[in-house]
């Protein structure tokens, strides 16, 4: 067996793109849901930083959870906030022209949308006002369709393609895509350079290396799905992927750091 060299894992400078803070209805007791517990688990695994959204923003109310997120992260230097957003038409969120500048001023450089969980459409008549503002500020959009198994048909890929086409300056990140998505993802990655893939559930054999070969390592972002899911598998997949160390570093965190730095 080739054991994992934890010093080499550290050198990857891992930045988890898919991490959640706070208790949810899905986390087992003992899972790391507080800042100290999450940072302790990151230390155990060798993860340097994480982009986190709040469980109350996804499972209860975005405004409520986003506020809670900033409070809980006030002294956490390794955890970076990601707000959960949805269209403003029902009055549950501020209009995008107000929300986005306020968000940037608060140091939030990424957003997550959960259209299935929050029951809204990602067609133009529903999300384009918000996406237009995100596109202007180049704020990465993490699209989470609530996938719980790879065989589920939960993603509207036509709508994803439309978003990528209509908003070419918007970095779009699909999260929790699984092995059953490859035949959708490859043509999307071919067509749209602003589309990225988060890797916490994309465990296609040779998938990381193959996407690197065809589309470039900059299209992939390391993520774990903590604290609902175990963090080790995604590290192991990247570690043994067979790609160059430089490409591993890009996927491990370089790509995400670049995306967050470009948001302004």
């Amino acid at each position, binding site marked *: 067996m080739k054991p994992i060299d934890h010093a080499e894992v550290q050198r990857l400078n891992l930045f988890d793109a898919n991490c959640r803070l706070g208790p949810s209805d899905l986390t087992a007791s003992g899972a790391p849901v507080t800042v100290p517990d999450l940072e302790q688990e990151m230390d155990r695994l060798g993860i340097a930083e994480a982009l986190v959204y709040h469980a109350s923003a996804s499972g209860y109310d975005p405004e409520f959870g986003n506020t809670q997120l900033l409070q809980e992260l006030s002294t956490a230097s390794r955890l970076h906030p990601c707000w959960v957003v949805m269209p403003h038409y029902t009055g549950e969120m501020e209009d995008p022209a107000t929300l986005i500048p306020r968000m940037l001023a608060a140091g939030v450089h990424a957003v997550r949308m959960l259209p299935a969980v929050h029951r809204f459409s990602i067609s133009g008549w529903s999300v384009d006002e918000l996406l237009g503002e995100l596109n202007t500020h180049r704020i990465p959009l993490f699209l989470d369709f609530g996938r719980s198994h790879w065989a589920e048909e939960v993603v509207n890929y036509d709508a994803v393609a439309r978003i990528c086409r209509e908003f070419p300056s918007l970095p779009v990140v699909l999260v929790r895509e699984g092995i059953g998505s490859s035949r959708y993802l*490859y043509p999307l990655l071919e067509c749209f350079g602003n589309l990225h893939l988060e890797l916490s559930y994309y465990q296609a*054999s040779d998938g990381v290396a193959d996407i690197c070969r065809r589309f470039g390592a900059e299209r992939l972002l390391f993520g774990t799905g903590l604290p609902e899911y175990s963090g080790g598998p*995604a590290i*192991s997949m990247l570690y*043994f992927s067979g790609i160059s160390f430089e490409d591993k570093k890009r996927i491990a965190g370089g790509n995400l750091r670049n995306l967050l730095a470009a948001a302004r």
Partner: protein
Amino acid sequence: MNPRIVDCHAHFGRFSQTKVGFADARSMVRAMDAAGVEKLCVSSFLAIGPDCVTGNNAVAEAVKLYPDRFIGYASVNPNRPDEIEPELDRCFQKLGMKAIKLHPAFHRYPIEGPSYRRVIEYAARSGMTILSHDWGRPEFIERVAAEFPNVKFIIAHTGFWDGRSELAYAGVLKRRKNVFIDLVYSNIFYDALERMVAELGADQILWGSDFPLHDLPFQLGRVLFAKLDDESKLKVLGGNMLRILQS
């Protein structure tokens, strides 16, 4: 820690529902070498699907090419009951298979049905191992495990357990030492393996990957990064499966 890693649940060939990265024996061995996996116990996707004979032949070819790296599972189609015994005879007497793999879901046939009964009785005649995609009700697997104590029964995909609810087969495993569970599942829930070992001990838990459907290192990470002592990891990663194969 220097474990022998033996995958109790892997496959061979292409898969209708998605792209498979390593679809031939040579590339699979390269992937195994990269991840430090010594042996794969494989069944063919073709054999657990539409064509048992051609699929079993493909597994036999892989085993012939790499006898130290692949261990073959024989698969049969329960919807063609008259072909079961002849195909098992062919697999074990001519093709060198070592165990049996069943897939009631793909073949849309109940695990408690008479065709599978014939398979279990066949296995009992020489104390074989049967891995099944699922074994249905805990009461059923407990009953057949008691009736056929020389057969080793592996319940696949128990890694689906999320660590929150009661583990359905826990009672069976505690009472029947010829029943094992494998960890193969796409979702790897936080601390679930640690909870499983705490509840059951490590002697009846087998690591498997579903490779090449799933990424081998991704599934390995479930054990490599687990908060378990080295002895438990050694058993789960391969020690238990080697013991089954040698018995």
